[in-house]
Every structure is written in structure tokens, then in C-alpha cells.
């Protein structure tokens, strides 16, 4: 899952995919703003074929949070 997330994230930010870890912070490490976060959420929804509620997107701080969301909504 992390590998796929790295690929998606690197479509939005120019960085070495291997430098992205579960602890990577979406705002301070990747520099994503709110709109870019929505863009990322949409790309993740497409890639994993699921729907993430808007309200869940707001709480995302780290890559680990994204992975947790994926686990939650994939189960649903």
C-alpha cells in the first residue's frame, strides 16, 4: 500500500519516492495545501476504487493517516 501511495504522491510533488514514509507530514513535508489535499484524495479514490468522505480528508496529517483511511474505507 505504501508503495502505491508513494507513486500517487509523487504525481503531486517532486521528491524521491523512497523518502516518503508513514511519518511523512502532508503539509510540512510535502507542502500540500487544502486544495492539493482534495486532489490527492481524489487520486487515491481512483487508484484504490473507493470513496473517502470529505470530512475524513480534513483530518489527514500524515501518510499513516491516509493508510488508516484506506484500511477503513476498503473494509466498508
Amino acid at each position, binding site marked *: 500500500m505504501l508503495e502505491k501511495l508513494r507513486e500517487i504522491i509523487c504525481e503531486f510533488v517532486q521528491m524521491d519516492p523512497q523518502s516518503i514514509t508513514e511519518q511523512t*507530514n502532508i503539509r*510540512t*513535508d510535502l*507542502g500540500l*495545501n*487544502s*486544495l492539493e489535499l*482534495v*486532489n490527492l*484524495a*481524489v487520486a487515491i*479514490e*481512483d487508484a484504490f476504487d473507493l470513496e473517502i468522505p*470529505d*470530512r475524513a*480528508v*480534513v483530518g489527514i496529517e500524515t501518510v499513516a493517516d491516509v493508510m488508516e483511511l484506506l484500511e477503513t474505507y476498503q473494509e466498508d
Partner: protein
Amino acid sequence: MVYYFTWEHDVPSLPPRWEQLLSPERVHKAMQYKRESDRRLCAWSFLLLRYALFCEYKTLDMPHWIYDENGKPHDSQKKYCFNISHCDTAVACAVDTREIGVDVQDFRPVSEAVIRKVCSESEIGLLQRSAQPEKLFAAFWSGKEAFGKQNGNGINYDLQAHTFWLQDEVPLLARADAPAVKTQLTDRFALSVCAFRDADVIAVSLTEMQKFLMRLLC
């Protein structure tokens, strides 16, 4: 009152000894950013707040913030309300006696899926008929963010449920007994303000900012 400053290419360099001009908490936050441009934006937005506070209240005191349960910052002494925003081409700061929200968003392409996640059906119709959909989407987005930032929810609300209409080709959201959202477009970004009263929007030049900061350092 809303103040903003903008630039053409890279985020301007910070002045020498910029750390002395920020609260320790803001320096800490700025240093958390990995990218230099993000660090500069974080610092410039705080410096613009200091400029705005001087213009509005003639104070040079260092702002100190407390955060509410939604993470919205407030003046620790509750003497004024403020809100700040930045994008790749501008920083903006709003100050008022009542809660106010401001947002800036530069123009960039967005996917159909993102538009469907953010906009109402009527907004989507306006975007489809627009000659400059990127500009209009940025205007809708900044308006929705300014609305959420005014009430402290950020984008944690049903974005599609608050439909903007166009007045003089820019989005407007106005309802009785509620703060109105007004947007204006520059050649680089959309700037939206959500306030209980009409807020003047003032462009500040980098030279003006630098002069003010030199004064602060003296």
C-alpha cells in the same frame, strides 16, 4: 480590512534576522516545513499580520495565538479577530473586530472529479460555460475556504451545499444575517473574504513590507 502582497516568480526571500520578527511558536512552525518556499510563506503571512495590526491598531506588539478546538488561531488577548492565507503567488491577512475569513488560491488546472467533489450542480454549470474555468474554479474554492475559515470549520463542511452565484463575473455568497463571501480576481490568484461587513482589500508592495520590517528590527 484585508491586506495582501504578491510576487511574480519565487516567494520573496525573508529579511535578515526574520526569526526575531516572529513569535517563537511561528518560528517553530516555519522551521517544520521542509521546502524553503513553504517556510517563507509561513513567515511572510505572520509578518503581513504584523503589518496589518500596525496599520489598523498602531501596535507593534508581537502577536501570540491560541487555538480553538478546530485548530483556528485567535489572538491570545482576544483584542482583534484575524485570518491569514497563502498560495504560491500571494499571502493575505484579514483583521476585523468580528470573526473574518480570508483565502487566496492561484489558478491551476483541476480534474473533473475534484470539481464534482467541491462544486454544486449550478456551479458546475457556470464552470462549463466559463471562458476561464481555472480562474472561476479558484474563485469558488477560495470562497468556500474563506467561508469555512470565518466560522472555524475550514473545509470540514458540505462544500457543495453552499452555492455561489456570480455578480459582475465573480462569485458571491450573501445571505440575510450571515457573513457574506466576496471574491475578487487578480491576474494571478483569486482572493475571497468572508465577513460581516464589507472589507477593503489593500495591496501592499514588497518594498513597503521591507520598510516596515526594518522599522520593527530597529
